[in-house]
């Protein structure tokens, strides 16, 4: 077997060194009746060539969004990943290194994390960010737990226009704790009424921008309302490219920003691994979950970086830790950092402007089709279409024509009849003019 160096002879010699007669002697502590005599009922080892073939066969059964016009979003967005980002994360020293607990031989990972934390803090308009969470949805749940610790209150009010996965993950994570959520219903028109819900027991209000339907919202007034009542405002951003174009949550007065960083540097990969972002104010840093990288100096006085404030974490604080998280999204945060470094101020703003112009162009084309209207009064690169027919069925029809038309809202909000004809449509820099034309033509045909 190509991954294991020992020859049969070496195994024999090593057993002799150890002073046992056979391999079985090393497993003598396993209860006899549970020991496996035969091999597991699974195929035998395969050559690299055959393994690759197996996966090519599986891949051929899928429709790649890169070989079809694709307008899918709803929390995961198709963006171009620069080849430098994917190359660097495959360098052995990043790909196959452990968590940087030994800072003297992990400065590469640590400095990159410090840069990641800074980039996330800058784009969200916050003071500090951690070294990543699993994804946007888990980051949202952690933000709520954190708000409850900071305020010593027990209830979170959750916007109905939050991505349903984020709402569900938050509810699931809190269900056995002393904390609870009040989930509002989705609203297609008008603003949600938070004022009457921010009671003295409320730890935080959780909102999203652009919201699940793609609408941009200014939460400045809501932030003030929260602060007056001693509550925190948690703002969720699941399309971070939007932050290149619009006012940041920090400028609105957010206390915690929970985000999904997939759009920058991380491939779609059928839903994971992605990279959760969590940013906040410096004063709340000791209540933050997850790893944090900090700057310091070494024995020679040279600048260096270490994981710090570890006493918040499970490996030291155990049952009193701020979170049980250990492994996070290390390599995805590196991909994010590299892609963001390539973009820079100029490129990030340009990418955002490009995405918006793509979406506006597509929206204007779609609005011309009879019977279709756009729900949004504002949007970044994704909007909600109201179709004259069931959106899920339209999506299936278009898929059979080789077009990935968008996400039917009913897939994420299945029990709400108001949502049956709504379709979420995203247009990023990856959509060509011919993609848009093909979509608009095909949609007009199937309606």
């Amino acid at each position: 077997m190509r991954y294991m160096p020992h020859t049969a002879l070496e195994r024999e010699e090593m057993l002799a060194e150890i002073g046992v007669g056979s391999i079985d002697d090393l497993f003598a502590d396993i209860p006899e009746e549970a020991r496996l005599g035969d091999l597991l009922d699974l195929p035998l080892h395969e050559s690299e060539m055959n393994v690759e073939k197996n996966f090519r066969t599986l891949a051929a059964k899928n429709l790649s969004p890169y070989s079809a016009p694709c307008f899918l979003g709803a929390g995961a967005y198709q963006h171009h990943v620069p080849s430098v980002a994917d190359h660097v994360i495959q360098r052995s020293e990043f790909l196959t290194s452990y968590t940087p607990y030994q800072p003297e031989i992990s400065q590469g990972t640590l400095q990159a994390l410090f840069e990641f934390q800074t980039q996330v803090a800058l784009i969200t308009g916050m003071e500090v960010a951690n070294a990543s969470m699993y994804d946007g949805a888990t980051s949202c749940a952690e933000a709520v737990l954190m708000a409850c610790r900071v305020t010593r209150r027990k209830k979170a009010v959750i916007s109905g226009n939050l991505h349903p996965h984020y709402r569900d993950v938050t509810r699931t994570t809190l269900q056995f704790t002393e904390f609870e959520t009040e989930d509002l219903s989705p609203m297609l028109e008008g603003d949600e009424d938070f004022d009457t819900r921010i009671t003295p027991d409320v730890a935080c209000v959780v909102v999203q921008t652009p919201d699940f339907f793609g609408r941009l919202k200014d939460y400045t007034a809501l932030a003030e309302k929260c602060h007056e009542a001693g509550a925190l405002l948690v703002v969720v951003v699941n399309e971070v490219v939007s932050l290149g174009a619009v006012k940041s949550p920090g400028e609105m007065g957010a206390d915690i920003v929970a985000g999904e960083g997939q759009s920058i540097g991380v491939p779609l990969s059928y839903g994971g691994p992605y990279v959760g972002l969590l940013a906040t104010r410096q004063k709340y840093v000791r209540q933050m979950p997850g790893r944090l990288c900090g700057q310091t100096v070494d024995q020679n006085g040279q600048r260096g970086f270490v994981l710090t404030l570890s006493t918040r974490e499970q490996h030291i604080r155990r049952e009193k830790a701020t979170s049980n998280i250990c492994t996070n999204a290390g390599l995805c945060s590196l991909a994010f950092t590299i892609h963001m470094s390539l973009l820079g101020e100029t490129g990030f703003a340009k990418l955002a402007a490009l995405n918006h112009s793509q979406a506006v162009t597509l929206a204007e084309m779609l609005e011309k089709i009879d019977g279709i209207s756009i729900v949004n009064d504002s949007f970044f690169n994704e909007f909600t279409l109201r179709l004259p027919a069931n959106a899920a069925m339209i999506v299936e029809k278009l898929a059979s024509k080789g077009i990935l038309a968008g996400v039917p809202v009913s897939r994420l909000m299945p029990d709400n009849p108001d949502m049956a004809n709504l379709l979420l449509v995203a247009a990023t820099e990856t959509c060509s003019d011919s993609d848009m034309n093909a979509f608009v033509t095909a949609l007009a045909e199937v309606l």
Partner: protein
Amino acid sequence: MLNNKGRPTQPVAVDNGEISIETFTGNMGLRLESPLIFEQGMPGRIGVDMADPRPVKVRLGGLERKGPIGLPDLSEPQVLRHFVRLSRQNYAIDAGFYPLGSCTMKHNPRINEKVARLAGLGDLHPLQPTSTVQGALELIDDLAHWLKTITGMPAVAMSPAAGAHGELCGVMAIRAAHEANGESRTRILVPESAHGTNPATAALCGYKVEAVPARKDGRMDLEAFAEKLGPDVAGVMLTNPNTCGLFETDVKKIADMVHEVGGYFYCDGANLNAILGRVRPGDLGVDAMHINLHKTFSTPHGGGGPGAGPVVLSDALAPFAPIPYVVHNDSGFDLVEQAEGQAQKSFGRMKGFHGQMGMFIRALAYMQSHGADGLRQIAENAVLNANYVRVGLNDKLHSPFDGICMHEALFDDSTLKGTGVTTLDLAKAMIDEGYHPMTMYFPLVVHGAMLIEPTESESRQTLDEFIGAMRHLLDRAAAGDTDYFLGAPHYAPRRRLDETAAARNPVLRYTPPAPTEGEETAFSAAS
């Protein structure tokens, strides 16, 4: 109140604080420094070319960003060189031996990276119609089959994103099962030697955590366990093989005992590598166990993630599994995405979308490469290697527990007593010898613990050299060469770092100089 782990974390000034960097640039030959990316920018550069935005009627609802963000502008070669220089300051399994106990740092095959990037796998959108992703769903189903077969368990929840997330999944399933029975139990029993994630997870599920002491042979004390058991115990969380590298010989009895009081047996599967193909957790009475795909099945650790932590479940817990999951019906594969119908007992959703697909692909490629025969060989060689290291060092270092170990060898620091050298100092000297340090000060139950897990990937030659280096260092410590150890590492990209200063005055980001006024962003120029 106070426990002292004996971890000096501030630099010890042994060179009179002399700075040994003598070059003009601060580089030292192939050791190349790179300033922060924020210190390298020049406004107007760009590292990604893209089309100019069309002039359109802006529909941002009046929320246009007004000021600059503060990101530096760089070209592609600058960014590439920066991150390549950073990479060279890292230790990595590709470059050297990582005897890091409890972490299973093994070879990461490159075919896994290649297939994870195939068009039609790595680029799928999670919300494509299921009719367009039948191959992806088949892949998840296939991996689930391998995991169930390897563990001898009837069900598996695929969505947890890492080991600790898997623990949360398992303990939530346990709590949901108790609640479905109308029971409100309050306590979870956890051995003293457990990973920190175990008590942290139990606490997140609203359980009170009670530690069970170990016996003199390093296994859980059954008498103490029996005393703590009762009708209010929701379950036990046990790592097996345990964090001392020992198989819990009474594991079946432990399972029976916890089942007898109506509790469940959660097994921390961090150490599954040691038993692949030799014993199935399902035959030991386990109700739930997470599997760290980034340990046992070699998805790269990536400097701290991403991981994946699928959880195998017994029949009793399976109905409570989180959504989503893959099902197979007449028309092919489908996803159950809502907690209703057949999933009505599900305790909910743990993450966005369907799980760590990128890790699933790599893990399945790894399993197919090994096959049933190779998987068994993994466990055998991993245990062989650990025992080889144990025997190679046990006249120099003291093992707190006698006899054969599983995949990792545990030592305490008693032989260092009186030398002025601590476990930490020894570890830092290992860096100078070209090794990543072993796991230190864990498990907490052993004084100055050193936990060495060689994994099956390492050759006998590597182990012999490592044993030789360790023996050399231990002799050097015994001979009183304390200063050498206190100053180590001498040859790493950095000397010891001042962790106390970092924690007292946390600097968690670069602070940019005040922005220049009147700067236009590309967006305002475009609109």
